[in-house]
């Protein structure tokens, strides 16, 4: 039976069919739906969100050494967090099959950088599989586990945004129950660095063996359409070497050209590739990201290549972009923007989002603010412009500490509850230990809002919705040595402003926890809370426009110039009513 599946759903299905018993990860676009799908549809797989990617990776590593088939998921920057364990795991190698999903984001649709994680695999000497459609997303998980077991090492499955977030037809199969392998404690293999020198040659041996495997595996497939192996190249013959979604684009723009489709891109098969390239006059190397395959081909001495010099390394590929680069005839796309305003429509804080009050108060205080990774990165944009740095998970606190050392005495760090648990805790402990007076605002919305409301340790439930011991943020912060800790209702404008002002003025480190669940959590629906949307009484309204200062997307203007609240959108967060000087705003009867 065939079903239309998202690339990520297909990966989850692949893990289930391949008999995976344990799966862990941390949410991050474009990887998030993999674990969500596993948790929702496949109870046979013990799946969980972990506190961060390093923890997820190591839990998976333990489960694999313990003899299970394991999958670990994360976005590309997540693997940076787990890089420590990713680099050492190949030394001991695995026992049960182990596949780590690295979801790269060319074009940075929802990321702070572009990075091609195949280089991390190259550095760790880990093989890389790159599926090119939803069917292969499923199949390659199984293949990855088989390779992992055959070569006793971890395997990376690299996807990109377009692959993870496209839907295609997938042939469904049944689950294979794979027996657990026996774990035998072996100090020389699993412990004590003094033995590591004994393991080092094994890492090289594995990659050499994989190189031989790459020559024969069917996922490295030649699709001949012009020229033939062993024959001299046809005049002007063109071939492609490609992987991942870029392979589909190559097929799309030049269906008559031969293609060497690489499913295993590290290590690549030197003999087969040399033969293919020799059979064509020009070989286009088409891969999203960096010249990872191209450089491997160049290192083999192949010279008739055209790659990054015309396709570029920045941003996402598309059939249009590749066709233009090659010089094919592409229909011109008119640019209407020269003659009519095509206004941008950037994402904004959701209706009812509790973070608004925080940005309002920070803007008024005119302090230097170090931001972090989450919905609240939007605080850097108009109308707030009240967040001044964003780097990576947990960096707000340590950056604010550094800014403070550089003389910005009233530096403030803002961080979400999920990000705080992920990477903020050691940074706070360090700042307090090293004598900081920074203010930390923990935007506690009881979820991981940015990636779609995933639970985490301070949300008090697991991925499967099971109640879990709720991390006590206040207690944790106090345990780190912070004396001034305030907890406020995030929708109470004045309370938030007062708390933030007090924290900034406090001599010593201070923490404000602004608490209020994300309005997009199912339990926060108006009907669930038994509340009514707010409305504006035109008889009382003086058109002073104070309510517009909430920047709530649900508030628009009538043709008569009165503000009006969209009752479908309104979440009854009350903030606009708090702004109104004449009490014209209140709940509908």
């Amino acid at each position, binding site marked *: 039976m065939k079903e239309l599946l998202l690339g990520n759903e297909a990966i989850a299905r692949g893990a289930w069919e391949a008999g995976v018993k344990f799966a862990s990860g941390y949410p991050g676009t474009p990887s998030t739906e993999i674990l969500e799908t596993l948790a929702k549809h496949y109870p046979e797989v013990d799946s969980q969100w972990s506190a961060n990617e390093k923890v997820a990776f190591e839990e998976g590593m333990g489960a694999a050494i313990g003899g299970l088939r394991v999958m670990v998921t994360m976005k590309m920057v997540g693997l940076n967090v787990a890089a420590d364990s990713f680099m050492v795991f190949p030394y001991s190698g695995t026992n049960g099959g182990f596949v780590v999903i690295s979801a790269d984001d060319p074009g940075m649709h929802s990321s702070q950088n572009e990075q091609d994680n195949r280089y991390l695999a190259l550095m760790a000497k880990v093989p890389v599989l790159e599926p090119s459609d939803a069917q292969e997303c499923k199949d390659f998980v199984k293949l990855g586990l088989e390779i992992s077991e055959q070569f006793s090492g971890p395997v990376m499955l690299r996807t990109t945004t377009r692959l993870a977030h496209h839907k295609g037809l997938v042939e469904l199969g049944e689950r294979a129950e794979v027996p657990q392998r026996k774990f035998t404690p072996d100090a020389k293999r699993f412990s004590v660095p003094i033995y590591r020198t004994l393991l080092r040659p094994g890492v090289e041996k594995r990659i050499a063996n994989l190189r031989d495997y790459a020559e024969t595996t069917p996922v490295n497939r030649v699709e001949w359409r012009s020229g033939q192996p062993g024959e001299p190249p046809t005049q002007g013959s063109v071939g492609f070497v490609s992987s991942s979604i870029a392979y589909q684009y190559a097929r799309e723009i030049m269906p008559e050209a031969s293609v060497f489709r690489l499913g295993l891109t590290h290590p690549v098969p030197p003999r087969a590739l040399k033969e293919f390239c020799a059979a064509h006059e020009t070989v286009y190397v088409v891969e999203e990201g960096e010249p990872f395959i191209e450089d491997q081909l160049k290192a083999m001495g192949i010279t008739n290549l055209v790659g990054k010099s015309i396709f570029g390394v920045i941003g996402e590929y598309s059939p*249009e972009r590749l066709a233009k680069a090659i010089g094919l005839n592409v229909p011109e796309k008119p640019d209407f923007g020269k003659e009519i305003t095509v206004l941008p429509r950037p994402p904004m804080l959701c209706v009812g989002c509790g973070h608004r009050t925080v940005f309002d108060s920070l803007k008024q205080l005119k302090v230097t603010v170090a931001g972090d990774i989450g919905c609240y990165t939007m605080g850097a944009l108009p109308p707030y412009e009240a967040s001044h740095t964003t780097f990576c998970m947990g960096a707000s606190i340590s950056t604010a500490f550094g800014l403070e050392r550089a003389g910005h005495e009233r530096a403030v760090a803002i961080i979400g509850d999920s990000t705080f648990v992920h990477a903020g805790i050691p940074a706070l402990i360090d700042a307090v230990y090293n004598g900081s007076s920074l203010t930390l605002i923990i935007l506690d919305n009881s979820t991981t809002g940015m990636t779609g409301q995933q639970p985490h340790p301070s949300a008090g439930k697991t991925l499967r919705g099971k109640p879990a011991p709720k991390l006590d943020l206040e207690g944790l912060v106090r345990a780190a040595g912070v004396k001034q800790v305030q907890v406020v209702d995030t929708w109470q404008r004045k309370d938030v402003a007062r708390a933030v002002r007090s924290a900034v003025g406090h001599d010593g480190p201070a923490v404000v926890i602004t608490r209020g669940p994300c309005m997009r959590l199912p339990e926060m629906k108006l009907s669930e809370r038994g509340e009514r949307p707010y409305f504006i009484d035109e008889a009382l309204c003086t058109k002073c426009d104070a309510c517009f200062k909430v920047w709530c997307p649900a508030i628009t203007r009538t043709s008569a110039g009165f503000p009006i609240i969209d009752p479908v959108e309104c979440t009854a967060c009350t903030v606009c009513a708090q702004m109104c000087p004449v009490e014209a705003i209140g709940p509908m009867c």
Partner: protein
Amino acid sequence: MNTTNLIFAGVGGQGVLLIAELTARAAVRAGFDVKQTEVHGVSQRGGSVESHVRFGPVVYSPLVTAGQADVVVGLEKLEGLRYANFVNLQCGSLLVNDHEIIPGSVAGAAEKYPHYAIEFLRGKGLKVTAIPASRWAKDLGDGRVANMIMLGAMSALTPQMSEEVWLATLTERIPEKYRALNLKAFETGRSFASPLASPLPAEAGSDPKDLSKN
């Protein structure tokens, strides 16, 4: 038969992804190879949302190339304008919900909003069909089903899928509680656009889309 290229565009919260998914499912039901892609990520409401759907005997790329879309469906006027340059000028068309949602966080957005976008695009030679879908949806009792009215209208322009295929797809996908209203909205759009359907893609004959033929 060649690949059919569709783009759905709107504002977060309007139901763009639902009608794209319904279209992809209908195409699967009709026996086509299908690929669909959409913008995920930042989950906030209020931003631009787009989804591409391609179906045919074999589909490679999930992305529609500019100038190749058979139909671009805009659930909002500005979003229709934003993706209008994907329309195939020879045989494609733009279906747009004549409804305005002013971007919230852009300074001076209300003044700069391109109210005359539809007339402008017609002036550029585009085949544009404006539908007061949001108003009709309110008349039906729920403004949110504007997306289903637009889907119904689009369904009349994609004769590769029969009405039975659409109805079966909708019935399967839409929860029973909302089914009657959504089917009604779909029919409203479909009967509006049916008279327009004759000169559109399936009968357009020539296929200027194939990049390889140059």
